């Protein structure tokens, strides 16, 4: 039985089209790199200044000048390049990164995202998240559907300070896959074994659900 996080990652890997340039946020999204095979021919961008990074294989010695934005020692794939921070963010602001995956504290019906600050509790700084959320063409959120106390993270409106407004394309949680549409959050897939009533109960946002079209994952 795969864990919730593994199910999210397997489902998320299906969002990447071979040949794309992909950015992975810190935490769960970084682990997606293990699900992107060399054959897919994607280049993973990390905002500290590398395009084409991959996880080191077991036993591969670290190069101390090669890290990703999460601080892990990385290796590179054929076609990779390294560059400075201004170049790295030019790539992001010019929308040359095709898709990015990020975690979330809160996401809402308008596709607003909050994932960097909890006033009074957690404010380490936003890093590169604001530019990535605002400028990358497709932003996919990977997160648990509810926080550790069971509170919904998929809300009518975000309450925390925003990373960027109206930036999210798709949300993949342990319970559902949802698209941000002009009409609201439309459920694409629902977790194996979960009912629509349970899903709605675990969600603050209104969900648009067409049961005849619903996939399982």
């Amino acid at each position, binding site marked *: 039985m795969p864990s919730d996080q593994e199910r999210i990652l397997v489902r998320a890997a299906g969002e990447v089209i071979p040949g794309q340039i992909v950015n992975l946020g810190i935490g769960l999204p970084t682990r997606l790199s293990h699900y992107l095979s060399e054959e897919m021919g994607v280049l993973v961008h990390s905002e500290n200044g590398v395009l084409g990074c991959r996880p080191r294989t077991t036993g591969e010695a670290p190069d101390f*000048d090669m890290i990703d934005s999460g601080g892990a020692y990385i290796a590179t794939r054929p076609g990779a390049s*390294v560059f400075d921070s201004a170049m790295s963010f030019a790539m992001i602001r010019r929308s040359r990164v095709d898709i990015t995956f990020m975690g979330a504290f809160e996401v809402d019906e308008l596709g607003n995202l909050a994932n960097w600050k909890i006033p009074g509790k957690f404010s380490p700084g936003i*890093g590169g998240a604001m530019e990535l959320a605002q400028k990358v063409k497709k932003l996919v959120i990977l997160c648990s559907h509810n926080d550790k106390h069971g509170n919904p993270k998929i809300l009518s409106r975000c309450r925390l300070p925003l990373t960027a407004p109206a930036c999210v394309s798709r949300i993949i949680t342990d319970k559902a896959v949802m698209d941000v549409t002009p009409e609201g959050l439309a459920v694409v897939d629902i977790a194996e074994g979960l009912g629509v009533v349970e899903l709605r109960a675990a969600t603050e946002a209104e969900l648009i659900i067409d049961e005849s079209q619903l996939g399982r994952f």
Partner: protein
Amino acid sequence: MTLLNNKFQAVEEAVARIPDGASIMVGGFGSPGTPFALIDELLAQGQRGLTLIKNDANEPGIGISRLIEAGRVNRLITSHIGLNRLAIEAMNREELSVEMHPQGLLAEKIRSAGAGHYGFLTDIGLGTEIAGKRREIECEDRTWAIEPALYADFALVHAEQADRYGNLIYRGTASNFNPLMAMAAEHVIAQAYRVAEPGSLALESIHTPCAFISQVVQITEATSEQGRRHHAV
């Protein structure tokens, strides 16, 4: 700017130019590219009341965290300090004043200074809580925020190779903020593992031309060993 023939100096001599209260850009994203030897010399010499500009605060016990832990830094302009709990604690105790910018804007503010501009116009951050803190103008029917360039008195940068005139070559992801800061500060001190004679570096492989560099010092790879360790992630 120092004359070409006088740029190659000892670490102690180069760092001794920095006075109390200086604003100092420090290269590096995490450990790669952090000029550990220059920072350690700054710690040893005792300058105080510093304003540091760095992407992050390194990690406890290394790099600029040592200066922060020693109470030598009044103000930090940065993007993310999540890997340094000591810096967060100093910020929360209000011993360290911290100014945070989105990372790409921090890089661009420094690049803008390096290009000799006042600043630039951007739509990054509109619709978020940083928006109201900046001047905004209308151009071509759109709203833009004015982001002033970020200059500094000094920059401390790390390069893989250099020559005696201060031409620099960076390596891997150790580039990051270094080439931007090398252009944005009034006085730039570069450290490199190898400082060669002028003419020995391939012309087209030079990342930062020597015109921007004030002093260059040679360090041993062992000097930076404290930054070369396995991360928790």
